[in-house]
């Protein structure tokens, strides 16, 4: 298990090094000037030049690169141009919001997705199976932003049950926090439900066809007991991998959903940084997301190795 962990960690560092290089490359890959973007159309060339110099954008590329690596290695992601605060502060402030949103969406997607997949597999080729698969396909095809607006129109505007957007901190009011998070989490989770349901169905069908399940069935055990006690634990192994992939997709989807529901998470921060060419936030944000994404994958891989010892040897 130790060597497995070392191998996985080393791989993660390579990925991080590549991501940090790509984050830096944004400065010259993305068109547009942060200084011109920050000032308005009547800014004089002198004002733009002063701001460029203050941001270090007048330095040569190698100088900027040395500065970038020097800073990130010492744990400093720099100062935001737009927010007038450090990038680390901006990110850590918003991380809990995005993680909570993604966690709620994941919980919803897993519970509903696995249940739906299970129902479909048990009723293979009958109407519940077809209904679940059609719904899953529909869910997979719907864009997040559209689904978000439909949710708002139905649950906030027409029914008035939930807020249409905005955010209340958990520490301020747990009840209000939950009310604010339900619609965004459902929006984010629904798209993934289809994905998980399809995988759960396939995995479950595979397991239900195994000899030991048929033996359990032949012994006369109750159908529900066979499915839940014997088949489901084994079917969960591939689902676990899918959950890892879904977690990454949820972080990506949060960018759009946070925009629609005005939630102050990392996605919103990064979208704002792109629009304003706030490069330090953009670079720091991407690196930070990469770390979160890699950590999630690492945890999933370790869990996978715990559940299935063959993985450790691979």
């Amino acid at each position, binding site marked *: 298990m130790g060597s497995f962990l070392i191998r996985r960690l080393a791989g993660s560092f390579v990925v991080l090094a590549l991501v940090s290089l790509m984050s830096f490359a944004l400065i010259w890959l993305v068109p547009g*000037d942060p200084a011109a973007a920050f000032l308005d159309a009547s800014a004089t060339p002198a004002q733009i030049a002063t701001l460029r110099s203050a941001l270090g954008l007048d330095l040569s590329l190698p100088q900027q690169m040395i500065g970038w690596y020097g800073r990130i290695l010492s744990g400093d992601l720099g100062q935001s141009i737009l927010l007038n605060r450090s990038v680390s502060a901006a990110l850590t402030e918003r991380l809990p919001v995005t993680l909570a949103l993604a966690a709620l969406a994941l919980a919803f997607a897993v519970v509903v997705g696995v249940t739906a997949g299970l129902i479909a597999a048990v009723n293979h080729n009958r109407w519940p199976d077809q209904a679940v698969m059609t719904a899953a396909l529909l869910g997979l095809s719907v864009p997040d932003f559209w689904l978000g607006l439909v949710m708002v129109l139905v649950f906030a505007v027409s029914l008035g049950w939930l807020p249409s957007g*905005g955010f209340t901190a958990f520490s301020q009011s747990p009840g209000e926090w939950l009310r604010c998070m339900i619609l965004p989490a459902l929006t984010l989770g629904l798209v993934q439900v289809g994905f998980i349901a399809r995988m759960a169905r396939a995995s479950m069908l595979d397991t239900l066809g195994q000899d030991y399940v048929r033996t359990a069935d032949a012994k006369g055990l109750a159908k529900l007991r066979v499915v839940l006690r014997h088949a489901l634990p084994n079917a969960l192994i591939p689902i676990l991998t899918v959950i890892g992939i879904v977690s990454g997709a949820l972080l990506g989807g949060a960018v759009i959903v946070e925009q629609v529901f005005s939630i*102050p998470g990392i996605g919103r921060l990064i979208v704002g940084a792109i629009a304003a060419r706030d490069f330090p936030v953009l670079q720091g944000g991407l690196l930070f997301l990469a770390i979160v994404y890699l950590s999630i994958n690492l945890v999933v891989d370790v869990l996978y190795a715990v559940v299935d010892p063959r993985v450790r040897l691979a």
Partner: protein
Amino acid sequence: MAKHLILKAAVIAAVALGGAQGALAQRKGGEVTIGISQAPPSLDAQITSAQASRNVTLHIFETLYARDENAKPVPELAEGVTVSPDGKSYVFPIRKDVTFHNGKKLDAADVVASLERYRKIGASPALVAAIDTVKASGEHEVTVTLKQAQSTFLDNLSSPRAPIAIYPASEAAKEAGKIEVIGTGPYKFVEYKPDSHVKLTRYDGYASNPKGTGRDGFAGKKEAFLDAVTFRFMPEGGARTAALEAGQIQFNETVDGPTAKRLGTDARFTVHKVVPFGLQVIKFNQAQPPANDVNFRLAVQAALDMEEIMAISYADIYQMDPSWLYPGAAFHSTVGSDKYNKADLKLAKELLGKSSYKGGKVTFIVDNLRANVDTATVVQQKLKEIGIEVEIAVSDWPTVSKIGFTPTNWTFWTHGFGIEPYEGPGSVMAPWVNGLSQQAKDPEIDRIAAAFNAELDEGKRKALYDAFQKHMYDAAVAMKAGNYGLFQASTAKLKNFKPYRIPRMWGVWLEP
């Protein structure tokens, strides 16, 4: 006769009752949440010229002079001003009744420190560039000396672009963005949650300008009835509209035309028109062919149907007006209107024949704002009719502005000028001085702008401004298509709201 008298009495009673109800309707209380599309980059009013910041900070901070409804500078924290005959010395008596939100009384030291801070780090340094010294000449008196006379000095001092806000001296000593948000305005700062909201509450110790008789631009009497105002940052237009319909926000800073039409038919909402909000301007890059040729520019100017451009780009919310200033401005002028909105293709072809343009593609750079893309498309179609081939290059604002501030890779660029015409003639001229926006110096504009800044005689200043506007048309330095506006929407319960450059939350109240 008796019947007539009874009827008359009934009418008088009804009017009196209505009046009484009107007076009673002004009630304190209630909270308003405003959906705004962008988050303010900072609440340090002096260091940012972002519209999103102005929306919030002009409720919190005040300036020595502020703009009235027609954008004329009038005293706000100053009681007035005495200007020396040579126009170099300005003595401002400061109001004695004003208290900051932290309880400190306003005095000359606060004003001096605030002006000095702006000179160091203010976002529009040109506003204070003429200042030589700022001194307290009494406990409640400040004297500003200029290096040379500047006719636009009071305009500058009262500009809401990146306001020269007055802070307590203790805050004015702090670096950019590090201040405590403490002003003298009708609302005080409560909290700022990044990417979420800014909350303000009514400042009950607010001392309204005794000279103000009512709501008047950014100046006048600022009576706050609401308990609290929250600015919620909601970038998605559809989400803002949904929030208004769901009752989660009471005011939507901007809605598109079709939504405005729909909400306008619903008794629960009121749609407001802010017209004018900006000028739609089409710039030429005069640093390279073909737009370095005046005949090419005049040909384009002659060909364009500005009404067609405005009707498509800003349907239902535009004004046709040749002036580079807004209607109501002191120097508003129709000079040059003989060359405005001509759509004269015959003349255009003649002028184009005299130019050096002999075919080939020219580039129209434009950001992804729908109205600007529409403007570029209409121009492209119209110019095709006189034989100019226009290629449209759309990208986001940072990319376009980077290209547009360089002398190559573009011929046309369109965007709005909002605050410049509001600020007045000096600001309208400034983008063309030194060839800043047209990428090639125009000696005539430089001469007029310098003379205008030094001239103190109102009549001569007006003549100079007219000369500027005439030159803009005679040389087609750039083209103005028209004035555009924007739609705002609020709950019908928000009473006495009057649209202006920011959604002013003073003078308004909520009905239950």
